[in-house]
């Protein structure tokens, strides 16, 4: 992170920026944040290594979540058994 990212900012301003960015990071990463917010963030945090690493790793976290859409294979047998139980209960009605 370049030293001048926070240059001229008071502690209160840094805290406000940090809190706002943290609060909206998901929206920023998914490009659903308001344009003026994105522009301001890009101006103020351009070249900021922690910010970029946070964005990249949050995006990777979301990608991992979206990739795990099936139950673990070890559960296949249990799954088939559960479906069979429900099928029998429906037939008994």
């Amino acid at each position, binding site marked *: *992170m370049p*030293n001048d*990212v*926070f240059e001229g*900012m008071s*502690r209160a301003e*840094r*805290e406000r920026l*940090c*809190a706002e960015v*943290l*609060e909206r*990071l*998901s*929206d920023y990463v998914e490009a659903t944040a308001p344009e003026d917010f994105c522009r301001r963030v890009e101006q103020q945090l351009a070249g900021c*290594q*922690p*910010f*970029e*690493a*946070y964005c*990249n*790793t*949050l*995006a*990777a*976290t*979301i*990608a*991992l*979540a*979206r*990739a*795990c*859409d*099936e*139950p*673990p294979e070890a*559960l296949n047998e*249990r*799954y088939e*058994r*559960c*479906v069979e*139980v*429900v*099928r029998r*209960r*429906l037939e008994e*009605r």
Partner: protein
Amino acid sequence: MDDERLLRAIVENEPGAFEEFVRRYGRRLMAFSVRTCNNVENAEDVFQDTLLKAYLALASLREPRALRTWLYRVAANNCRMMRRRERARQISLDDYKPPGWEDGEVIEVADWSDLPDDAAGRAELRQAFEEGLRELPAEYRMVVLMRDVEGLSTRETAEALDIGESAVKMRLHRARMALRQHLSEHHERVEGAEVPA
């Protein structure tokens, strides 16, 4: 067969309707139940109950387009019933501030976003993700599962969980930050283990 046709087949008790319903939604509901309950035995009960209740009540569903949302609503309610004795826990964003950021200090944050190329590395990362998921409070976990894993929209998730859309967004973001933190710690452990003594 789309959901509208599937619903008609179920209402009219057509042969193969149950199989089609299970083929379309069974595994996803099982996965949702397992990940939400954090306990395979409870998840089996939740899954069976959801499948049975949902199948029997489908005839009364007025809006076929809402089928998927409605199924997750039934599953989420069953999971909540199972977990009602647990104390609710909140996630605070304060726990995920980058070290030193507010003080204007220069502290590097590890960027592990280049996911491993090899199958073993990917499996390990996926396992770490599942661990992180298990550690989330249930109400946050359900939001991640519905939004990111199952692909429901913010509005559908809000309807399924009977909460506001702003609550969905807030919980989703905090849960993702907690998961990111868990994966960062996993990355540190792996990197640390690779450094020769």
